[in-house]
């Protein structure tokens, strides 16, 4: 099915949405943003990604609507091309090859056949603004090397350049000066602010610029939080400016509303400020936006604003300053303490998100599912403030329990430590705080693990700490006369010669607990909490510890700081093999015996995949990343791949994701992960543009009825299915382009069929579809746990519509055929 050979490291999603200003479509229905090598098209109403415009081979650095055709979009990239897209259908129309590395893109309405780009010539820090003539040609790829120079010595970021008065002048700021170039007069005016000479003006640096759409007025933002409005700047002497000052820190971006009556500004305060009539006393605020505002953009229709934030989020804001939609990508925090985890329930990647939060990120849709506030305290954004940090987290019991550890250490002796246990609530579909343990240990908690064995009737959690103890926590009944409740209590405290406990790990069946105390690994019986045996290799402190799985469950693996990887046989209590490998990441695959280890050297990071039973690795990929890999995780595949090649077979059931030091999330794949994104996007697009025809009304009514019935029928706790997918035949009919549709007579039968049969088929097909699953879960007494989860996944993610079409029973097919013979030509007359 795929070419067998090439497994390569690919970047998978999670790229910055806030790299450049987002752009609205002319009708404000869509919002475009750059995202790594792609341009993403989101719906402003539903927050869904409707298209991904792929084609650039490097980072996309600028997007602009085509001023002459608002259904087209220009994009430029580091790969030296400008591409023109039809964003409604997601089609690449043209590629203009410029040749230079393009840093920013600007379009001007009156300059019909040229756009402006920022390029870098000679010196690394000197950028030029040039205009590129886009030749008219019918071919797909056009060379456009005709560059004409506009401005020199400008800043790389497009925030520092703005075009004003319908392209009559361009304003560029850098450091302490503002230059305005007039295209008609071909002159440049330059205004310089007093710089660092005295302390008062030390932070006068320009940080952004915006031009008034109607008047000759330039707004500039400054590092000290001031906004200056410049006027009369066509005269070097008579120029004047006025100051607006509310921000206490750097102004990150500025934007004028479409009519120019108000100015929007934002900065680190995470407050969007609207200055009405450019008056200091007349301002409105939208506070508590969560993170630093990096960019502000305004829709051409004037009804929406949007702000891009440093936590990789885009907020769509209504004209009356009400946030209407949030598009959240993977939050990239510089400190990932928790590592990468997989939520067993949603299969989402879980890691540190916003400060004090745990984020659930869907790898499939490249979208943040939700944020779980762990610390539950107001985050105060200030330098030098020591914050509470979320340091450890672990899932247990198939995602029913979540344990988190947070700490704050102001001084050496003052450690604040808190462990929280969260229970999954099926009703609210979220985690609810169950138990809070203050100071579970005297010192830093180094490891946290749940006993995930199937047979264990009582959830068990083990924490290891630098204070030399490991503690076993169990769930006990905490009911009183008022309510039934459960809570966690400490069951056992273990220690070994006052060494610091550094790691802990349960065996697959939960019978054994391995706890490493610096250089020594201790094995404990989880029934009686007796020390069974110890291993010591005298090869440095144990950094990673894990049990083998499935057929290799008799092995215990440990990686030490001195670069030794050891494998002990638990039956013989002896060292099976050891290898010299400086292991940074060691992750077992939950679906197989395989274990992935990433070593780091000055050359880069190398990946080794091996089975504990044999010392020879199954697969080696050298230099997966230049920088150090911090965390890695195996993610079970929804649909198993079928690699036949020996060396790639380990990728069949799971996929390996890893996170480097610079927060790029990478994976190993034969195809780009974006190909696998669910094809629901196109349907959504069609859904929205559904016209209000008589059909619509019929269907709308029909759906409402269905809804009611469904609601009545679904008294259980299951998640409701999206309604749009309830009538697959109609969707099929509406979403297929007209020229590829089969003949109307064929369609008609299907269409009517779907309408007529809906009552029976819904109750017979769809609802039981889920109920069945539930039954399966209960009946299938869980020896094949993995299969089960896969099945759940199937129903969740594959298109239900197709399922139903495929699953038409023979009787139904007969019926269909019968219908085909009936004359439905009256439909066409409608």
């Amino acid at each position, binding site marked *: 099915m795929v070419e067998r050979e090439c497994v390569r490291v690919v970047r998978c999603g999670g790229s910055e949405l806030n790299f450049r200003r987002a752009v609205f479509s002319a009708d404000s229905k869509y919002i475009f943003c750059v995202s790594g090598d792609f341009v993403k098209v989101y719906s402003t109403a539903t927050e869904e990604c409707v298209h991904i415009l792929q084609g650039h081979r490097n980072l996309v650095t600028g997007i602009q609507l085509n001023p002459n055709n608002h259904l087209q979009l220009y994009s430029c990239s580091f790969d030296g091309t400008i591409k023109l897209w039809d964003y409604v259908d997601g089609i690449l129309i043209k590629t203009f090859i410029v040749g230079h590395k393009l840093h920013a893109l600007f379009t001007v309405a009156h300059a019909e056949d040229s756009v402006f780009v920022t390029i870098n010539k000679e010196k690394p820090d000197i950028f030029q603004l040039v205009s590129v003539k886009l030749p008219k040609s019918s071919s797909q790829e056009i060379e456009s090397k005709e560059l004409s120079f506009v401005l020199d010595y400008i800043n790389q970021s497009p925030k520092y350049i703005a075009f004003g008065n319908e392209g*009559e002048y361009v304003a560029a700021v850098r450091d302490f000066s503002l230059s305005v170039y007039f295209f008609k007069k071909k002159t440049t005016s330059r205004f310089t602010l007093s710089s660092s000479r005295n302390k008062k003006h030390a932070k006068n640096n320009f940080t952004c610029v915006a031009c008034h759409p109607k008047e000759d007025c330039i707004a500039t933002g400054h590092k000290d939080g001031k906004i200056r409005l410049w006027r009369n700047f066509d005269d070097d002497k008579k120029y004047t400016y006025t100051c607006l000052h509310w921000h206490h820190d750097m102004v990150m971006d500025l934007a004028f509303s479409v009519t120019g009556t108000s100015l929007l500004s934002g900065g680190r305060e995470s407050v969007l400020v609207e200055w009405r009539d450019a008056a200091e006393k007349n301002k409105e605020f939208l506070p508590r936006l969560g993170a630093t505002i990096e960019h502000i953009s305004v829709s051409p229709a004037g009804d929406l604003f949007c702000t891009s934030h440093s936590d990789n989020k885009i907020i769509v804001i209504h004209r009356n300053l009400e946030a209407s939609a949030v598009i959240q990508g993977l939050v990239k925090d510089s400190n990932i303490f928790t590592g990468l985890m997989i939520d067993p329930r949603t299969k989402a990647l879980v890691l540190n998100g916003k400060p004090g939060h745990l984020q659930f990120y869907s790898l499939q849709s490249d979208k943040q599912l939700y944020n779980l506030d762990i610390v539950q305290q107001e985050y105060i954004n200030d330098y030098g403030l020591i914050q509470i940090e979320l340091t450890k987290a672990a899932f247990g019991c198939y995602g029913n329990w979540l344990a988190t550890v947070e700490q704050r250490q102001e001084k050496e002796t003052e450690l604040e430590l808190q462990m929280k246990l969260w229970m999954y609530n099926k009703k609210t579909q979220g985690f609810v705080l169950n138990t809070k343990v203050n100071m579970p240990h005297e010192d830093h908690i180094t490891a946290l693990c749940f006993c995930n064995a199937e047979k264990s009737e009582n959830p068990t959690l083990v924490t290891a700490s630098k204070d030399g103890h490991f503690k076993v926590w169990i769930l006990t009944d905490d009911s009183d006369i008022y309510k039934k409740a459960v809570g966690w209590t400490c069951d056992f405290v273990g220690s070994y010669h006052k060494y610091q406990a550094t790691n802990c790990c349960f065996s697959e069946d939960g019978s054994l607990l391995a706890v490493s105390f610096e250089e020594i690994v201790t094995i404990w019986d989880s029934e009686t909490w007796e020390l069974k045996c110890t291993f010591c290799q005298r090869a440095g402190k144990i950094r990673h510890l894990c049990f083998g799985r499935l057929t290799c469950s008799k092995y215990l693996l440990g990686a030490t700081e001195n670069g030794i990887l050891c494998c002990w046989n638990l039956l013989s209590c002896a060292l099976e093999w050891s290898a010299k490998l400086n292991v940074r990441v060691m992750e077992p695959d939950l679906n197989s015996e395989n274990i992935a280890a990433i070593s780091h050297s000055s050359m880069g990071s190398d990946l080794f995949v091996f089975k504990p039973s044999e010392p020879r690795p199954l697969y080696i990929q050298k230099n997966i990343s230049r920088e150090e890999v911090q965390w890695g995780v195996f993610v079970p595949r929804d649909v198993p791949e079928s690699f036949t090649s020996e060396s790639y077979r380990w990728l069949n059931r799971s996929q390996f994701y890893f996170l480097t030091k610079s927060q790029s999330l990478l994976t190993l794949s034969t195809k780009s992960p974006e190909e696998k994104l669910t094809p629901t996007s196109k349907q959504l697009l069609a859904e929205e543009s559904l016209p209000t025809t008589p059909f619509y009304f019929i269907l709308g009514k029909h759906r409402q009825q269905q809804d009611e019935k469904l609601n009545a029928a679904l008294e259980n706790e299951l998640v409701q299915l999206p309604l749009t997918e309830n009538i697959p035949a109609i969707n099929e009919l509406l979403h297929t382009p007209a020229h590829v549709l089969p003949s109307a007579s064929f369609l008609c039968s299907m269409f009517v069929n779907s309408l007529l049969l809906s009552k029976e088929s819904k109750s017979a097909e769809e609802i039981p579809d889920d109920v069945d699953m539930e039954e399966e879960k209960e009946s299938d007494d869980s020896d094949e746990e993995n299969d089960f989860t896969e099945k759940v996944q199937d129903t969740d993610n594959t298109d239900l519509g197709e399922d139903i079409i495929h699953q038409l029973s023979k009787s139904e097919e007969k019926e269909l055929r019968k219908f085909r013979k009936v004359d439905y030509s009256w439909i066409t007359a409608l």
Partner: protein
Amino acid sequence: MLAVGWGWLTDARPSPVASQLKSFWFCRRHQPHRRCRSLRMGEFKVHRVRFFNYVPSGIRCVAYNNQSNRLAVSRTDGTVEIYNLSANYFQEKFFPGHESRATEALCWAKGQRLFSAGLNGEIIEYDLQALNIKYAMDAFGGPIWSMAASPSGSQLLAGCEDGSVKLFQITPDKIQFERNFDRQKSRILSLSWRPSGTHIAAGSIDYISVFDVKSGSAIHKMLVDRQYMGVSKRKCIIWGVAFLSDGTVISVDSAGKVQFWDSATGTLVKNHLVANADVQSIAVSDQEDSFVVGTAEGTVFHFQLVSVTSNSSEKQWVRTKPFQHHTHDVRAVAHSPTALISGGTDTHLVIRPLMEKVEVKNYDAALRKITFPHRRLISCSKKKQLLLFQFAHHLELWQLGSTVATGTVESMCLLAVSPDGNWLAASGTSAGVHVYNVKNLKLHCTVPAYNFPVTALAIAPSTNNLVIAHSDQQVFEYSIPDKQYTEWSRTIQKQGFHHLWLQRDTPITHISFHLKRPMHILLHDAYMFCIIDKSLPLPNDKTLLYNPLPPKNESDVIRRRTAHAFKISKIYKPLLFMDLLDERTLVAVERPLDDIIAQLPPPIKKKKFGT
């Protein structure tokens, strides 16, 4: 090397002998006498006097006269000062005030005539030659709140407490009442003529009236919104109006608004909310392309008329720069062609040049802040060790040390008597110094006229040389017996003063001499004290003018090389007076600004971010 500066006030015991009895007050500094190393200049004991309890009065009105480039300033105690902006902003004339004559309005009329009006209901004309009040005339309308001269300068309007606007004709030697305009309900706080002279705007409480000058009737009554940020204040006082030639009326009011009205239709055109407190004053430039308003928060806002886009003729008023040079209410503003002038309760007169109007960027284009009068308020009796302080309405005689107090009062004008009593030098308001022989009471000679006014005069004891300081910081030495400039004076004029010396912005107010060292001239302004040693070489532009106090380990060679005639000390600030008591003792009178501010009413409290 200068040896002054490390002494402290020794023992100053006040003994009030002036008309007003002061409470007995000791001012004693217990810091030890620090003596500097014996230098060539010698060592002084310094009486550092800080008990001169002088508080300048707040500025009430300013009026700028374009023709003569002079600025009239009136203070709350009725004092009127005339500043010559061409002569280095020197305060050249001065009319002492009186408690009963609180001025509320000040204006210039045709032919350099200055009028003021006040709450006593009188219109006063000042005689700028004789420096006295020409006449005072009651307007019979109760206290006068506002006054405006017509654009032609031949008519005068006065707005009174009873709501009447009275028109006066200015005759060559007096003013004559012509008629009343329609009487309004409440007091007229502000008045402005339309530049064509056909209409006037009068600001009252809660409304602005527009009058037709010919008929004298009100043609529009424009009500001003009392609302202030959604909160209804009791009354909205129109503190100032300005009538532009295109018919626009600009008003400033107590709700912090600057509003633009169309006088033809009587409608509000635009509204700028600039302050949380009152906007108290407005002044428009002659070109009508910019104006300035002053607020009770101490901020001055500049508004400019700028074109909306470069290729359209449409223009709009835009608030541009705010200036915060005041701590208290800005009661009065003026707009000269090149500068914004503001003054208020904090007693400073601030002249802020407009950079875009300034042709060359020199020291004239710098911001100036004038706090102290440009004359000497203190005199000192060397023999008796007495200090005489001049206040607005009284004098105080203080004694240094413990001798019994008696004293003399020195005249206020610029006079200098030679110590032997033979010569008298006098400078009038016009340039030129006359030297009289006291014995035969005849004019001995006249020092050649110089275009800048004289700020200080003194005659040296032994040589009878007359030393003259001018407002442009030039210093001349004129030998009275020889009737010509001395050789030293010629040398320094030939070589020119140091550029930093010429850039000082306060005039020299006092000159004195050392009894034992005839080559020394002692002079000072508000920020420095200088001893000129005529025997030393003159500094050129390359040398360091403000030589720091001698570092301890500096070799004599370098010291000698860097030594020049000007020994400047800047430790005493602001210095109102400094003189030698005897050859070893100096007396310095300082008036720290903080002490003045502490005696002013508290300013409007503003929340400062981060406090």
